[in-house]
């Protein structure tokens, strides 16, 4: 049984305008997303900015109230659960944020930050908690002397380690990693990625790994989902997706990655235009619409539910983009 099941999840935001601030349109940030995530598995989520990947992550940890659809965690429907009902679940679902400088309270010492999850969950005595904090620091490779220092005293990579320590404090089952290394220096990125891999092996964690760097996502994930304008257009095992992409958008994304090897330079097929706005998205296949594909109109009245083309490889079956 899978740890997390997401069915046809929609997260819309009202766009307000006019004098009375009425809702004049809706921003369909996540527009019908379905996937499952198994125990100990990593699902990578890639897409350009504005495609809804962060919103999806926030909806899953229930920092947002989903518009419709269903989120099931560990056999329990948490789509519309209230704060009280969510608290026991929150022990098992944690999040790591992109910018550790902004997600750590600057006025709290590292001990305060790492003790807080235990206090919220009413766990342990003061002495026990202090011991747990030291264990956490050790686990993420920070010295015990860090406890009485403030976040600003640390470098970016060390701060992200504090963020990770906080996320693993309650021994969760699932961690949503929202661009965990994009704010870090290149030489520090690999340290943090290694730490995440180590922790996963040690604690049997599942990750929803959100990033825009495709090479990073491929390195970290078992399966990868490609999002475009609020929808998943392709989902496949990592190697399969990179070697045998079936959707035109996935191909375009892969083609755009700069390859760190000058011997492999090539003239690319460039994707034109920018990512369209999720406010009033086009009907049918949004990517076919952006590419002005002649077959796009056929996709308008089609059922675009993902179709399995080979074992575990799902593609949005629009005539314009799937080959």
């Amino acid at each position, binding site marked *: 049984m899978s740890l997390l099941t997401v069915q046809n999840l929609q997260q819309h935001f009202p766009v307000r305008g006019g004098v009375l601030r009425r809702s004049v349109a809706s921003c369909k940030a996540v527009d019908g997303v379905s996937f499952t995530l198994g125990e100990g598995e990593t699902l990578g989520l890639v897409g*350009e*900015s504005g495609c809804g990947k962060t919103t999806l992550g926030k909806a899953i940890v229930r920092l947002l109230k989903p518009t419709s659809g269903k989120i099931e965690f560990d056999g329990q429907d948490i789509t519309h659960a209230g704060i009280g009902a969510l608290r026991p679940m929150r022990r098992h679902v944690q999040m790591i944020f992109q910018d550790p400088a902004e997600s750590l309270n600057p006025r709290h010492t590292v001990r305060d930050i790492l003790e807080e999850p235990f206090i919220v969950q009413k766990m342990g005595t003061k002495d026990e908690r202090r011991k747990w904090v030291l264990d956490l620091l050790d686990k993420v490779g920070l010295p015990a002397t860090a406890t009485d220092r403030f976040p600003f005293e640390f470098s970016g990579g060390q701060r992200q380690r504090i963020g990770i320590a906080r996320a693993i404090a309650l021994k969760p089952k699932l961690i949503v990693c929202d661009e965990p290394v994009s704010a870090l*220096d290149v*030489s520090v990125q690999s340290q943090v990625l290694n730490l995440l891999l180590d922790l996963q092996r040690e604690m049997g964690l599942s990750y929803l790994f959100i990033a825009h760097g495709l090479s990073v996502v491929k*390195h970290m994930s078992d399966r990868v989902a490609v999002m475009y304008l609020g929808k998943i257009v392709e989902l496949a095992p990592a190697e399969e997706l990179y070697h045998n992409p079936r959707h035109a958008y996935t191909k375009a994304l892969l083609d*755009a*990655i*700069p390859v*760190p090897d000058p011997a492999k330079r090539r003239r690319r097929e*460039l994707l034109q235009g920018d990512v369209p706005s999720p406010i009033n998205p086009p009907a049918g296949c949004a990517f076919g619409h952006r590419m002005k594909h002649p077959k796009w109109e056929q996709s308008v009245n089609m059922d675009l539910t993902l179709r399995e083309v080979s074992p575990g490889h799902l593609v949005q079956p629009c005539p314009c983009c799937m080959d």
Partner: protein
Amino acid sequence: MSDAYESRTGILPVTSEPGILPGAADADRMPVSPATGGRPILQVRDLVTAFDTDAGRMTAVDGISFDVPSGKTLGIVGESGCGKSVTAFSITRLLPQPHGKILGGSIRFEGKELTTLPLEEMQKIRGNDISMIFQEPMTALNPVETVGRQLAEAILLHTECSKADVLARSIDMMIKVRIPAPEQRLNEYPHQLSGGMRQRMMIAMALINKPKLLIADEPTTALDVTVQAQILELIADLQKEMGMSVILITHDLGVIAEVCDEVAVMYAGRIVEQASVFDLFANPRHAYSQGLLESIPRLDSKPKTLLKAIPGNVPGIADFKPGCRFAERSGREHSQAHLTNRPSFVEIAPSHFVENCPICVA
């Protein structure tokens, strides 16, 4: 500057024939074929740039030397705080005042010394012969003026031009940077444009006076990969068309591999290695360049395997050592002498330069 200059001439590439500097002689600035190259358009020697702070003088760029070959692209790669942006601001003399100072060395642009040039002279060069593109177009563009006015300002600062000419040149340039419907865009404000369009506007402003040298400081860091690919290709195409030289500053080795001819790797205020892009990626000699290349995840690496990480953190400017600065992260034993004496910058193979710490360059 003569002493410093002499001390380096022996080890830096002596450029080919003393031919005419492309672009200098003819007013039309004929495009130079990248293949012929020619003599460097910019020569930096022993540049030292420092900031005076409450905590004392911080040397952000500590004696670096490099050439920008005419018509080619030099990539400067390094992590945050290594001094790559400060190098760019030193060349354009845009260091924050009054704290930022060029303390030594020379920057010669087409044979003209820039470090001591009077401000008015520098203003004639900046935006005209040397232009710059910045990382975040939203903060570099003026939010309360239309992009058309900002483009016109760039023209009128350097040439006297009729209104009709300004408009014609603006639209011409916007077509060149592939902005659709330029006439309408001219009257829009930066916030009405997408990130990619804003960066195109920045490029249009930088290139409108046909500069000989373009300095692009992380031009694609704030953009998505698909838009990044568009912008990089645009810069390369315009470079070919206009025959300009480019300094591309980035932290992304992928971007370097895709577009640069020459690469300088900076670490902690110094260049630790410089070579042609093929040389550097095929045969990195300094432990830092090697570590950097090994630590990045690649599309062909095996998923969920541990990466070869460089231990430790990027040193802060206050912790810069006099000797080899990569010593403590290299995982190799350095003697006290290596930590106190600055390694010399030598040509270890033809046109391949390295900061020759005997431990880091094994």
